């Protein structure tokens, strides 16, 4: 039977394309662009964090590399769209390097390692103002000249659709099953012949490509970037939160998560003024306490919504002996 999640998302995304015709103001479109951008980024993150089960808290690295790729390559005279492509390539190369080192680690160690890489990139960008413009910033070319905000919005929707489609395809493919096997129990997966490092790396490369593309789009929308904007840990955590609260490892999760969280954030800002971050924090705590599988995950298991083939349970793996646990806790293979 067809996956209801896909149908819902497809309808939603097609409907989204028509929104600019009814809502022409820049502000709304900018907020919605953010919603779709983070949906796409969340979906991209989901490949690594949700399906492969590796908590990356450093995705801002790829976002920022994509953004700076666009800015810096176009400064050399290369055309904007070609610079975007180069930026994506650079993001993928970064992912290859970061993944090579990080994927040897597991669980919290992996997460902390990704944080470290993203922070190093941010500090390098900040401390080399002659190369990157530093905190004074660097100009980014406009990818769309006419009716820019609308075009960026559509680009955001298309990117989300692409990420969604890609995730849906991966979910049903052998590659997807390998990823989920790795997530559930990497050692067992290894023992049945799954090449864990290769799979994880591929997931990361794809994830980084989409994230880098998102970064370039975002940078172009604002025409101007600084390291604390595109390489900040806040971006990494925002992406992860959107996917995790929405429902990591589910198809609709990041999309729903972004819609809920990004609009909530903006609404809180308008209503609560200075207290908006506190309310947002409360929202996160409440969702974790009462919807531990994420919004979509909880809706699926508790209310039977979006049900399809039995969802793969997302529980922590069983322990082994103390010594093995100690040894494996730090290193992957």
């Amino acid at each position, binding site marked *: 039977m067809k996956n*209801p999640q896909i*149908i*819902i998302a497809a*309808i*939603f995304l097609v*409907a989204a394309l028509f929104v600019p015709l009814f*809502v022409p*103001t*820049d*502000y*709304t479109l*900018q*907020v*919605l662009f*953010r*919603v779709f951008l983070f949906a796409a980024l969340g979906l991209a993150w989901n490949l690594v964090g949700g399906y492969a089960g590796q908590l990356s808290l450093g995705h801002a690295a790829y976002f920022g590399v994509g953004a700076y790729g666009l800015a810096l390559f176009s400064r050399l005279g290369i055309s904007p769209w070609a610079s975007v492509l180069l930026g994506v390539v650079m993001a993928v190369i970064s992912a290859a390097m970061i993944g090579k080192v990080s994927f040897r680690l597991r669980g919290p160690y992996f997460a902390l390692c990704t944080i470290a890489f993203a922070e190093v990139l941010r500090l390098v960008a*900040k*401390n080399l*103002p002659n190369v990157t413009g*530093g*905190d*004074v*910033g660097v100009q980014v070319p406009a990818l769309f000249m006419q009716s820019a*905000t609308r075009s960026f919005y559509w680009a955001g929707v298309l990117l989300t659709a692409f990420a969604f489609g890609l995730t849906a395809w991966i979910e049903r493919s052998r590659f997807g099953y390998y990823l989920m096997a790795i997530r559930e129990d990497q050692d067992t997966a290894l023992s049945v012949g799954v090449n864990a490092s290769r799979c994880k790396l591929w997931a990361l490369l794809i994830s980084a490509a989409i994230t880098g593309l998102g970064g370039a789009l*975002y940078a172009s929308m*604002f*025409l*101007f*970037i*600084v390291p*604390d*904007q595109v390489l900040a840990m806040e971006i990494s955590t925002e992406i992860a939160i959107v996917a995790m609260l929405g429902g990591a490892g589910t198809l609709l999760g990041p999309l*729903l998560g972004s*819609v*809920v969280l990004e*609009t*909530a954030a*903006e*609404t809180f*800002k*308008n209503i609560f*003024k*200075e207290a*908006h*971050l506190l309310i947002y924090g409360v929202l996160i705590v409440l969702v974790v306490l009462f919807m531990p599988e994420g919004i979509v995950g909880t809706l699926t298991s508790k*209310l039977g*919504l*979006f049900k399809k083939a039995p969802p793969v349970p997302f529980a922590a793996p069983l322990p082994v002996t103390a010594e093995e646990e100690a040894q494996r806790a730090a290193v992957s293979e």
Partner: protein
Amino acid sequence: MKRSLILFLVGVSVLVLTSCKGSKGGGGNTFKIGVVTSLTGSNAAFGQAHKNGYTIALEEINAKGGLLGKQIELDYYDDQSRPDQAVQGVSKLVDQDRVPIVLGAYSSESTRAIVPVVTQKQVPLVIPTAVADNVMESGSPWVFRICAGSGSFAAATLDFLKNNGDPRTLAIVYENTNFGQANNKSMTEASKAAGLNLVDSEAYQASSPDYKSLLQRVKGKTPEVIYFASYLLDASTLMRQAEQLSLNPKYYTSAGTGFAAAEFPTPDKGAGKYAEYTFSVSQWLPSAKWKGSAEFDQKFFKLTGSHPAYHAMEAYAVLLVAAAAIDNSKADQPTTIRDAIKQVSLPETPFGPVKFDARGQNQHPVLITQVQSGQYKVVWPPDAAESKPIIPTPEWSKRQ
């Protein structure tokens, strides 16, 4: 499944549309003015200072009857110290709330980010505090800046030095943020043009507990002049640790901010005796001779319990100037307001004379002050000076 589908779509649409609701602006019985500033995030302390300054100006203007017969209302948008949020804020204020003028933002990067937006949306922007030179580089006719830029700071400092001992070697110590990097860039270029020898340029991570190694490096290069670009707390830490290291250049100079804060010479909230003899560029002090300065200081102190730094004054001034322009010309549309601001020529405001040049920059006088006996004394230019500069700076071990 159909039911859940419909529920989902409806729920999502409701969420999305309600999130974008702003307050309806334009008509009604208040005159709305849009304000973008950093109420949260890393610049929150300064955003709050802005807000306090704006509040005081708001009360003053409304007490006198408001603008064009209506009371003014300030429509704030919090950019969370992020340039992308500042851009979003301008969109909301202009598209949704229909404000005819925007004031802000706080930081140079947020301000720089919103310059193309106000230009495209054709709404005037009056900038209170962003000092980076790139903020004004586009030359947009919609942008006005009331404060002096980092280029002016460097020029004023070099002018002072040339006429007061003419030192030849310079080190720049700056925090690794937009403020610091912008000032470093300006001073590097200006000092090179002036023929000085830049022996060292040290960036530091702001809010570090320990700068002694950094200062040791500077000490090793024996500059005659050190030019700081620091905020208050780092300024205090740096001066304290300079004493611990016996760092003795002939001149401690700075790009203002921390070294020009009202609390800097005080022992409880600043560097106390370690601030003595430091020079700083100054845009404004509570003790400034301009009419309305002292009153602003008192009102601010009453409101918050501390003395205003120039950020609050700049916010206050920007709202006063905008209101004056609107009031004089009875303008209430973006284009007419812009023209009114262009025409503004106020010889006497609490922030000194205000007149915007062809590029929208106010030629704000930059003074050089020195901390003498725990007080800021203007020492340059000579026509504004109230005291002679004490040069060279006495060595730490020789001070009592």
